[in-house]
């Protein structure tokens, strides 16, 4: 029956409507925390107008792994900015600010991630925009929020700061070692997603009542929500929460081990059936009845957890990673080698689900990237197109969204309100651009 619901999903996903069709978002965001969220809405079908300062645009355009650009574009920019319309708008000029207000008047959602006070200094803060568009949903995303001591100190912030200040990094390391910075930009990504949950809830409320609102979002506060047991534990026991490396102190067994062929393997087998299966696979079925391990809560106690994990580690050291994975499937517990970039790219399951989806972009050609990770049977989310140079869609947005003509647009360029890309890596079209590909003409 699941087959019936999802039959031909991949083949038909681009022919169905999108759930947020008709919703319009105006974004003046930078780096990652800002632009990630609007791209998620864009993949759900919203129209997203992305403003950048011309001619250099967002600093993200310079960011890349060890100096590698993809067709002259930043891979980071590429990954987090699907389906947007790119406008080069100088908000330092009164004409640019007025243009922003015109756009905001026609948008449902306005998002920014500048430090508190910056939008106000450009005359495009919430109070001004709300006066023009009373139903607007206005989101401000920052490191520390709009009030409070850290906001008052006007501290700048990054994802790394949120990992550091929240205790997230502290809890992500081996005991006795220095806290680890996660390779993933957790604060930016989880933050961007949570902010959009708030935005979509606000949209639902507006669908019901017509009322908009202001949403403020602090990246550092937000990540604390994902740290679960740590807070009540400290309150109840009076003791500090401690990190535990790869061992999950709330699930037993759940840890990472090394196989006989030197490969790191993650394993989990906590339910009664799974644990029995693991013990059988290890050739030690009696362990499942051992009073130390029989019951999950007992097994989680420090001395018991350490004991069972040692037994498992010793067993895993006698088997290859492949053998362990096969035994896991056979005996009904979970085990996997750690996936590398190659594993992700070559994985057939991810390809079959179109998680690794192909984008056929008029400007950047064909490449693969990750799809929005929620499949929807009636309104599939889609990655439709890739990134664009600074100000690439100026004319299109001015004409289609604001009804401006060629003379209006000329004056906007002349006044400095509008601008296009600098001829610099990350800002400009890919090499060999014919001057037309990717431009919207309708």
């Amino acid at each position, binding site marked *: *029956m*699941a087959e019936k*619901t999802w039959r031909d999903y991949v083949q038909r996903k681009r022919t169905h*409507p999108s759930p947020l069709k008709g*919703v319009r978002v105006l974004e003046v965001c930078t780096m990652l925390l800002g632009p990630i969220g609007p791209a998620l809405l864009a993949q759900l079908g919203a129209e997203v107008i992305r403003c950048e300062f011309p001619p250099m645009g967002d600093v993200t355009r310079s*960011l*890349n792994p*060890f*100096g*590698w650009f993809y067709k002259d574009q930043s891979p980071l920019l590429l990954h987090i900015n699907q389906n947007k319309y790119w406008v080069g708008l100088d908000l330092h000029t009164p004409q640019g600010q007025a243009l922003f207000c015109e756009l905001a008047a026609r948008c449902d959602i306005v998002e920014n991630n500048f430090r508190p*006070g910056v939008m106000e200094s450009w005359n495009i803060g919430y109070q001004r925009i709300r006066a023009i568009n009373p139903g607007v949903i206005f989101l401000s995303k920052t490191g520390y*929020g709009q*009030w*409070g001591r850290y906001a008052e100190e006007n501290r700048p912030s990054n994802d*790394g700061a949120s990992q550091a*200040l929240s*205790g*997230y*990094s*502290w*809890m*992500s390391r081996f005991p*006795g070692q220095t806290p680890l910075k996660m*390779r*993933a*930009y957790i604060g930016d*990504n*989880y933050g961007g997603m949570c902010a959009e*949950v708030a935005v979509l*809830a606000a949209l*639902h*409320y507006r669908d019901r009542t017509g009322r908009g609102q202001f949403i403020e979002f*602090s990246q550092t506060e937000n990540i*604390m929500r994902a740290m*679960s*047991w740590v*807070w*009540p534990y*400290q309150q*109840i*026991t009076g003791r500090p*929460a401690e990190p535990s490396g790869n061992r999950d102190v*709330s699930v037993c067994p759940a840890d*990472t081990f*090394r196989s006989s062929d030197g490969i*790191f393997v993650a394993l989990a087998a906590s339910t009664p059936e799974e644990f029995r299966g693991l013990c059988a696979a290890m050739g030690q079925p009696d362990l499942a009845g051992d009073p130390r391990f029989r019951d*999950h809560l007992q097994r989680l*106690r420090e001395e018991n957890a350490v004991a069972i994990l040692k037994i498992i580690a010793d067993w895993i050291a006698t088997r290859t990673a492949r053998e362990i994975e096969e035994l896991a499937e056979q005996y*009904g517990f*979970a085990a996997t080698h750690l996936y*590398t970039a190659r594993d992700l790219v070559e994985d057939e*399951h991810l390809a079959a*689900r179109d998680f690794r989806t192909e984008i056929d972009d008029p400007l950047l050609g064909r*490449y693969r990237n*990750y799809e929005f*990770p*929620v*499949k929807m049977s*009636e*309104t599939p989310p889609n990655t439709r197109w890739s990134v664009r140079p600074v100000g690439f869609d100026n004319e299109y947005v001015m004409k289609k969204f604001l009804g401006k003509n060629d003379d209006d647009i000329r004056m906007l360029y002349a006044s400095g309100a509008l601008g296009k890309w600098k001829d610099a890596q990350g800002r400009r079209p890919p090499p060999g651009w014919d001057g037309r590909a990717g431009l919207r003409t309708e």
Partner: protein
Amino acid sequence: MTAKTRGDWSEWSAWIRERDDPRIARTKPEALDDLLVLDLSSKSFAGCHCSSALAEQGAEVLRIEPPGGDFIRTCTPYGILYEGEGLNYLTEGRNKHHITLNLADPEGRVLFKRLARKADVVIETYRPGTMDGWGIGYEDLKRDNPGIIFASITAFGAFGPRSRSRMGDYDNIAQAMSGFQYDTGERLPEGETYEECPWAVPTKSGPWIAWFMAGTFMAMGILAALHWRMQTGRGQALDVATSEAYARIDDFVSLWYEHTGRISERFGNLDIALWLYCFAPTKDGAVFLGGLRLEMWQAFADMVGKWDAWGAETWTSVAPFTREAEQLKWSEMVFAETRKYTSDELLTMSLEYSRHGRLAPITCVVAPILSPEECMKDPNWIDRGIFLPVSDIIYGDVLTAQAQYKMTETPPRTRWVCQPVGHANASVYGKHLGIGPPELASLKQRGIL
């Protein structure tokens, strides 16, 4: 920014605080209080967090567990229980009405179908095919309720070759399959072995971030589906695979590999794509140092008195600094400086620099790396309402992170922290299905509830 605009800011700040302080949240309307959600999450914190995202916004969430309770309640650090409850579940039971129902029993499924007829959303985390096999899958429920939004979160998704796997959905497994564990962690020092350095291995996140990402993405999907339903009246099925949800946030590793053959490897506390962006040791601990713009990197150099010695004035771009060899070289020089100061001193220096430095107001980001214990005591977060204890009628005052975003019209709130298994059976079955005490007792006695 000028003094005048900053002055305007404190007016703005006071204005907004008056309207979005979490302390007044309970006086305001709730965005999702028109929704009835059935949460069948089983052994999955992703499902629990997904329904929390809706419950925090006022949805009526019926948390449906088997008569013995959901196994996830036993997933608690070191096996600790508080007032009979596991500490993880204690943080994710918020605002939900906890009832029991035996879905393995046909009579239990009949009751479920009656509830589903009135529901807006169903969240379930059973292996693909389980709900269908019980006759309460999406295709079954939509016959009686075409607007139903049926959300399934599983380890590998509802379809595809691996969807038939017997492996359960675990956060540590999803982290392993996301690609992020492999290239996070300390590098093995030259000439050492893993036996000597058991900590120099691929290291996962401590928190259950994969489950949280899956639950949050699904919440987004549900809300988007609700918007669509408002226009069209139609519901649909949603499918999230936990490992995909977390893998999704990877920025460049797959593209990099596919086009260059380079596999992303551990880089310690530096960053493959960013400079200045690292954890740096200090006299009394460590700080996060950030400065993705050239001026911010220059500001750091200036702040530690190395503007001339390092030739900061001659730098024209951060791009050369991101290269591997450059990072290794410059990070040594940066750390030699940061070790001269305490974390607080560096923080103060960066704030001072933003006021009086050569490049003011531009400064670098300095954030002390704190323990959760220090974080919990930080007056800033207490003031912001994250750690306002929730006064729960069953569990007393419980400190659980809340108010993680603020809204002026429909702020999130934590009305209660958690409930024991089946706590709301009488009130929920009475309200929704008109089942009174005698029938309730009979259902319990026969193991349906």
